[in-house]
């Protein structure tokens, strides 16, 4: 249960939500995507409460990638096609956009025809990322994107996410309990613990105050 949360997320940079598991990071991301609504208070996007946006349009603008990748039935291409259909991508633009997001997510084009359930966890996570990018979001919410990955794959994925922020000028919010990893890419940090924000601000400053290196016992 989140309480007394009052934060501002800067645009076009990577913000990390740090804190122990069960502290409220995922709950916060779900609120931003409106999968849940707060009991009290407002969440603003461009100065306007998010409840005033059409919820499906809001979710195109603020895309969420879950901690455990979820593949829709069919191939990778089918997965991208679902996102394109939902975002109203024109048929003649689909191929170009699909190639673009595959490139951004650093996925081989040859994977397009592969059934989703035959991919590795790391590949599925990247396909989930690519699928979210198909809706051309302004804000990308990533819930523990590296938690199921080995260190090498995790580093590669975070490098990809870092370049997304630079190339697409996306506002990215990453929930993670890996402080040492967060220090490498975050610009802004929010520490959430037991449902409360205990610190927020410049990532270098905020994260330097946290135990080092410590991922699990933060």
């Amino acid at each position, binding site marked *: 249960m989140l309480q007394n949360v009052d934060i501002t997320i800067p645009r076009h940079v990577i913000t990390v939500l740090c804190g122990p598991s069960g502290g409220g990071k995922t709950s916060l991301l779900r609120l931003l995507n409106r*999968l849940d*609504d707060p009991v009290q208070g407002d969440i603003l996007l461009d100065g306007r409460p998010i409840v005033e946006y059409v*919820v*499906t349009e809001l979710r195109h603008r603020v895309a969420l990638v*879950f901690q455990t990748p*979820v593949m829709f*039935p069919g191939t990778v291409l089918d997965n991208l096609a*679902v996102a394109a259909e*939902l975002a109203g991508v024109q048929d003649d633009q689909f191929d170009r956009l699909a190639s673009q997001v595959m490139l951004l997510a650093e996925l081989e084009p040859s994977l397009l025809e592969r059934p989703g359930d035959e991919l590795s966890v790391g590949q599925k996570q990247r396909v*989930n990322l690519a699928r979210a990018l198909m809706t051309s979001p302004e804000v990308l919410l990533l819930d523990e994107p590296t938690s199921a990955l080995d260190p090498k794959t995790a580093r590669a994925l975070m490098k990809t996410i870092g370049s997304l922020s630079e190339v697409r000028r996306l506002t990215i919010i990453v929930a993670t309990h890996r402080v040492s990893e967060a220090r490498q890419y975050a610009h802004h940090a929010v520490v959430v613990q037991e449902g409360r924000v205990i610190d927020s601000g410049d990532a270098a400053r905020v994260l330097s105050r946290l135990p080092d290196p410590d991922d699990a016992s933060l």
Partner: protein
Amino acid sequence: MQTLDVLEQPILDLTWIDLTVAVGLVLISIGVSCWHRTGLARSFAVGALRTVLQLTLVGYLLVYIFAIDRWYLVVAILLLMLAVASKAAVDRQDAKTPGLFGITGVALLLGSGLTLIYVSIMVVHVDPWYNPRYLIPLFGMILGNAMNAATLAADRLAGEMETRHTEVEAYLALGASSVRAAREPVRRALRASMIPTVNALMVVGIVSLPGMMTGQIIAGADPLLAIRYQIVVMFMLGSAVALASVIVVLGYRRTFFTAAEQLRAKDV
């Protein structure tokens, strides 16, 4: 002609003594249940007793209704059957969702009602329109199948929404409407509810001889007329099952989502 001779034979009477002899068949069921300790022996005994009581009561009720011959009495009986079927369909659900009784009632009313109206007016040409000799047995058959289908559909939808809630939520998170997000659970629920009827259409006359047809033949009807009736029955069951299933699934689906296209917390 051998066939005509058979058809002209009088119907063999069944006395209460004959029925008492038939109880031996129930004893076989009870014996098997006791032998393997299935825990169903008592249920078989109670079920057999209920069968005798319920059917006897229905028999007298039908005799009364046929004799009175009033349209409002027939409609009242049909509505009573509908209410009992709706309650039975909801009682069999594991998840007790508020409003499910209403959804099921509407599904059975429209699915069974529209099918009955179509069959009685357009196909069988029942005269007068409320003739209980046709309407009540036809509605009973339609309703029984529609009720089973509605139960299966609602139960399967609840199961699919539970097992696929992460997939459904992933669709929502991408900006899908609840209708789009639940498309696969809905498809699977409809398939599960309609497959028994499709199977019945495939094997009727080969693997199974339906009760209505055999009943008509035993009662002395021309087998070809009995078969024509049975064909109509099979088609109307397909229609009732499809309509009841789709209405219950679409109505029930709404209860899994909030107005803001969120999964309701109780279902996650």
